[in-house]
């Protein structure tokens, strides 16, 4: 036996550079950690499932919001003005006014709803029915529903509204933007609530993974102690646990994607019916590549964060005695 210096002893890394050493180490640790995961399929699956559900909930809700936002953004352009005329205006006067307004360049179409038609519709829809027959006369005015042309800017819309309002025949101009704005505000609140909820769920994932890694560290306490005793650095000892966290995060997020996609698949017929009602190409927004990568990225980062916290906290306490 020839005794060589220690530096020689650990130097036969001839053909490989530092990067490939690093890659090699991580590759082997990664596959070993993966092996341990597979070795306990039930326990691993439970954790992955919990992570998947926890990730899927905010992802799905966010997708719902995204769809609503997409649908409702179309409503902004198709806003009609309801111009309620003075009750003293006759039907023929109203018709003349409608034709006049329809000639404007910034108006697409004007539709007259006569007082009679409005009352008939109200009777039918309100359910008061025959009670309304006892009214001495029709309290409703004629109404012009003015559809602005699509070329209008917000400024020209305001201008159009003001001009309609200043017509002598006009009692009131009502723009149906308010409910759209309210709807958007509600969507925004819901979206923020989802973000806060997602943050909490993210913290929960860190705790779940951290706890799992903590147990794994406890189980391998002797092994950690021995490897440290024979010269393993904290980084060396930490590495397999970080990889465990990585795998949990990765598989959890991939499963979460699967859950969301399955949910979308279940919703498809319902959405098709809705699209039919709108008689338009309402298509459901699904997870695109960016969303999917974002979910996987979040899962992986949370997995690494959880395992890092657990490893950092417990690794130092395990020192050879």
């Amino acid at each position, binding site marked *: *036996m020839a005794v060589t210096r*220690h530096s020689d*002893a*650990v130097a036969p*890394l001839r053909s490989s550079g530092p990067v490939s050493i690093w890659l090699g180490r991580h590759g082997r640790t990664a596959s070993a950690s993966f092996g341990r995961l597979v070795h306990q399929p039930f326990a691993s699956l439970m954790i992955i499932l919990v992570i998947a559900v926890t990730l899927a909930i905010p992802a799905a809700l966010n997708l719902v919001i995204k769809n609503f936002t997409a649908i409702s953004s179309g409503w902004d352009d198709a806003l009609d003005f309801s111009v309620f005329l003075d009750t003293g205006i006759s039907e023929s006067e109203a018709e003349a006014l409608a034709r006049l307004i329809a000639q404007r360049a910034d108006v697409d179409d004007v539709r007259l709803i006569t007082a009679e038609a409005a009352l008939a519709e109200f009777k039918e829809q309100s359910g008061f029915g025959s009670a309304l027959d006892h009214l001495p006369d029709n309290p409703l005015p004629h109404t012009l529903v003015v559809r602005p042309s699509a070329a209008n800017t917000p400024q020209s819309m305001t201008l159009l509204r003001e001009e309609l309002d200043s017509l002598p025949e006009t009692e009131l101009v009502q723009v149906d933007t308010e409910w759209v704005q309210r709807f958007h505000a509600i969507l925004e609140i819901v979206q923020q609530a989802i973000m806060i909820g997602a943050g909490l769920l993210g913290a929960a994932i860190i705790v779940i993974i951290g706890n799992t890694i903590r147990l794994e560290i406890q189980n391998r306490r002797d*092994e950690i102690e021995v490897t440290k005793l*024979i*010269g*393993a650095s904290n980084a060396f000892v930490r590495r397999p646990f970080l990889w465990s966290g990585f795998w949990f995060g990765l598989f959890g997020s991939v499963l979460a994607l699967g859950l969301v996609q399955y949910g979308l698949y279940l919703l498809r017929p319902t959405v098709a019916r809705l699209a039919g009602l709108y008689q338009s190409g309402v298509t459901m927004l699904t997870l695109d590549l960016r969303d999917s990568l974002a979910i996987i990225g979040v899962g992986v980062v949370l997995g690494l964060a959880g395992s890092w916290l657990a490893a950092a906290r417990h690794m130092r306490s395990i020192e050879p005695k």
Partner: protein
Amino acid sequence: MIHFENVTKRFPGGQEALSALSLTIDKGEMVFVTGHSGAGKSTLLKLIALIERPTSGQVVVDGKDTRRVRRRKIPAYRRQIGMVFQDHKLLYDRPVSDNVALPLIIAGLSPRDAGKRVRAALDQVGLLHKEKKNPETLSAGEQQRVGIARAIVTRPKLLIADEPTGNLDPDLSLEVMRIFRRFNEVGVTLLIASHDIALIDKLGCRRIELEEGRLQQAPDEDDFLAHFGDDYVPQGGDDGWR
């Protein structure tokens, strides 16, 4: 190779494991530390392995003042030293070969590069044929030899062993000592804590006896250097145990 200068180790609670201990072990020596349990043998080895730090005094190992070895550098420092333990400290979830390979893997070798060295180390302790076995299936003596193979696989210049034969019967103990002796012959410095005085006397190696943390019959260093100086050649061959 190892130099203790006025080293005192006091544990929390006031108990003094080593008291102003000074000693020198030269390169290429094979030295035994003896003494009753609690005399400070383990503490002495732990100070060398930086498992413990001295309360006062200086420990120099291979020319390096261990006070200067920072916490983060301890792993790299330990990799320079081979360590053998009474309870082997093997990992029972993997085969013998993986246990022996561990120091090489820690040092960054790929398992493939490590394989040749692992087999060489196992060959030296006579366990090449048990490479694939789980250490649990081996006898205590064999397990200890696996521990030794793991300690020498990185070819350290210094090997420390804490009661390596503590759990072994006389025949196995002799076998283990014989292996140690062979390493010593090729230049490895060995420091072995043991209470098996009969066995040590057979080997004819230098003996440091500790009692309550102090050297007993403090050896005259000059005298020792005369016997075990630079041209110290391990004895043996005619004492019947080789």
